[in-house]
């Protein structure tokens, strides 16, 4: 079977092994269609199978071995500046969140595979699990100039970059690892149109996405005081580390860690430097950095100890083992954050859906069909994904709670159908009817909450069921691995 989707990046000829090592799971996290995993596996079979070739009329949307990180039980906490200051997210911010979560913002294969900005930047952060064969060299990296998502952007080099967290992005210009773009707006435009072959975004969509990203704040770190100084009870190691962080480098007293990672300025200096990593790259923030591994533009380091070792070698710092430990302790202290993960549950999902619905409160009366359509699509996906958190009756994992799960699924499906009514009314130009349908959908959503919560114990929001479900998926997928293609693999027991 000939398969040339990946151009310069050949797909592994050993998809069975790859799938074992980079297992894909049926969808879990928001905005990632549950079916992607299955589609990818279809390709695994297709690539592996001479006998299959004559039967298969299908092919997959993403390469075999793709991992989108959907299995996570928790999700990154979102902190919005507007809410932290006692206000609420604006229409623009919510619209930006919709666009950020919508595959329709992107184009080509990304849109077809249901990939959105949020797939890589989960809740505006990073995605350390993401791995796409041919575009990643390790988990959490991705080549934005590869062949897959826009052949026109293919630069012929496998040069993946880490996926940066967008927390605090309003403080972190310029944008891009190499700091090539001063404006977040311009940067977003390039990502959408050039890297992901998306349609030219409207002015209001770009404005909204900028508003959304600029509203995402760092997760609070109570150990950081004024001017970026550590506060509260410090360990001796942290205290020494802070001193070392400010100490001028021996070979060039104009330099220090703090000279670039400016504590009073979100630990950045908005400039590019050559730190011996293969070119000029902008100074990354150290805030919340504990949750942003792997480190450096290409993700070459997985720990602070490795990062400190790199600077020690490159800048001849002459650090002792204790010095290194102290710097790591300091980095861990300033890179920390409170409650960076929150449980994924009905409440969180409903909150997000409600935020998305709020966009329609403005878009429908304004007869803004483009925004309303994108929003309805995003909510539809959210609701369908939420439906899949309540295993259907034929699930081999959970047998209890059949009635509750059935009610939850039915409730959500009727909500989806009510959204369809809004869309139908809009398409026929009847915006008053669409507004009435929106009010009705909102009532249905309110009525749905107790039904969904009653079913939560038998859903994938229950850790035990979640783990059993994904273990069963893993087992099934492992059973699909051709031993001839993975001859030396010893399978771990579940």
């Amino acid at each position: 079977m000939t398969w040339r989707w990946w151009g310069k990046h050949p797909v592994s000829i050993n998809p069975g092994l790859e799938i074992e090592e980079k297992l894909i799971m049926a969808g879990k996290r928001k905005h990632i269609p549950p079916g992607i995993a299955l589609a990818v596996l279809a390709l695994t079979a297709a690539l592996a199978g001479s006998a299959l070739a004559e039967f298969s009329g299908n092919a997959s949307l993403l390469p075999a071995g793709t991992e989108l990180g959907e299995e996570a039980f928790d999700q990154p906490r979102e902190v919005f500046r507007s809410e932290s200051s006692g206000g609420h997210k604006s229409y623009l911010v919510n619209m930006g969140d919709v666009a950020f979560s919508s595959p329709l913002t992107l184009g080509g294969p990304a849109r077809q595979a249901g990939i959105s900005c949020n797939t890589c930047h989960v809740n505006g952060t990073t995605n350390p699990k993401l791995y796409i064969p041919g575009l990643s060299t390790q988990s959490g990296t991705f080549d934005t100039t590869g062949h897959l998502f826009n052949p026109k952007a293919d630069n012929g080099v496998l040069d993946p970059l880490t996926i940066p967290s967008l927390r605090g992005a309003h403080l972190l210009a310029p944008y891009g690892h190499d700091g090539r773009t001063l404006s977040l707006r311009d940067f977003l435009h390039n990502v959408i149109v050039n890297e992901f072959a998306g349609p030219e975004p409207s002015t209001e969509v770009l404005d909204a996405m900028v508003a959304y990203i600029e509203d995402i704040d760092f997760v609070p770190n109570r150990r950081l005081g004024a001017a970026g100084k550590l506060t509260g009870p410090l360990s001796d190691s942290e205290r020494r580390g802070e001193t070392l962080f400010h100490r001028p480098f021996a070979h060039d007293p104009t330099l220090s860690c703090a000279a670039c990672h400016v504590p009073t300025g979100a630990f950045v200096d908005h400039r590019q430097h050559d730190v011996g990593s293969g070119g000029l790259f902008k100074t990354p923030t150290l805030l919340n950095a504990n949750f942003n591994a792997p480190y450096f533009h290409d993700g070459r380091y997985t720990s602070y100890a490795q990062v400190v070792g790199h600077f020690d070698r490159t800048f001849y710092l002459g650090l002792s083992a204790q010095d290194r430990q102290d710097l790591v302790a300091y980095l861990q202290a300033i890179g920390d954050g409170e409650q960076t993960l929150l449980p994924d549950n009905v409440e969180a999902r409903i909150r997000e859906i409600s935020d998305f619905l709020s966009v329609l409160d403005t878009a429908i009366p304004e007869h803004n069909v483009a925004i309303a359509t994108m929003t309805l699509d995003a909510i539809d996906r959210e609701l369908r994904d939420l439906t899949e958190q309540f295993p259907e009756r034929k699930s081999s994992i959970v047998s209890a709670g059949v009635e509750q799960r059935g009610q939850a699924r039915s409730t959500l499906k009727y909500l989806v159908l009510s959204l369809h009514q809004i869309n139908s009314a809009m398409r026929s130009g009847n915006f008053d009817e669409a507004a009435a349908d929106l009010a009705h959908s909102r009532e249905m959503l309110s009525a749905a909450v107790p039904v969904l919560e009653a079913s939560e114990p038998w859903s994938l929001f229950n850790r035990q069921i979640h783990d059993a479900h994904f273990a069963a998926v893993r087992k099934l997928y492992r059973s699909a691995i051709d031993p001839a293609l993975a001859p030396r693999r010893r399978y771990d027991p579940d």
Partner: protein
Amino acid sequence: MANRLKRPLYAAGAIATTLCLANVAPATPVRAAHSAALDAAAGSFKPYVLERIARSLDAVKKMRDRIAAQDLTGAQQFWLAARGGWEGSEVITNEYFPDLDRKIDAWPDAERGFHAIEAKLFGAHDVQALPAAEELVANLTEFERQLRTTTLTPQGLLNGTAKLIYEIGENKAEGGESPFSGNSLAEIRDNLASIAAAYELVFAQGTKKSNAELAKSFSSDLAAMRSLAAVPTLQALDQVRLRDASESLVNDLAMVGQASGLDKPGLGN
């Protein structure tokens, strides 16, 4: 209201709107409002589905024999044939026989059912699946036996058809139900054929009489889905439009049920 045709009973402003979502239980008890003719029409769907189950069972038996003979290609061929019959009867499988459906079409399950065997045959290229094949034969045999003595009702068929239509717009379109074999697109087409048969045999005649415009809308939306599914590959499938068409069709069907004196379709499970 200009868009009244597209407003089933659960829509805003529609007659008899209810927010009692918890009432949407599977296999909703049938009200006595529909006609005896509709009951008879529901019965007429049984030969259709029996034929498909028989076809599936026959293919599964042959698949088992091919597995026993260590013939991978033959086993794969009969697995695909068996899926055609099974997917052609999904209007009733989950609605009427949930326990057997759980054994026959289990997910995720590496030990039992169609997909466990699929993973072996198409993914691992391994014919060591005889126990699962034997069990599948037994379960499909039991399915056929129970089907022969089951009375199909208009409400049950309305529920099963609505769920299947919705499901096509759901995860099947987003990657497929049979990932290891690459058979998902064919299965969508088999589903659509059975949906068309259920509608034509059970609901079409009454709907044409009571609401010709609705009947026309249903046929048009169903044709749109079939047209969308008539693509060569899953990549070529326009998933957004397929989902949109499926939602339109479920709404149509809800109104068909309403016009036939039935409850709104249960979409759970």
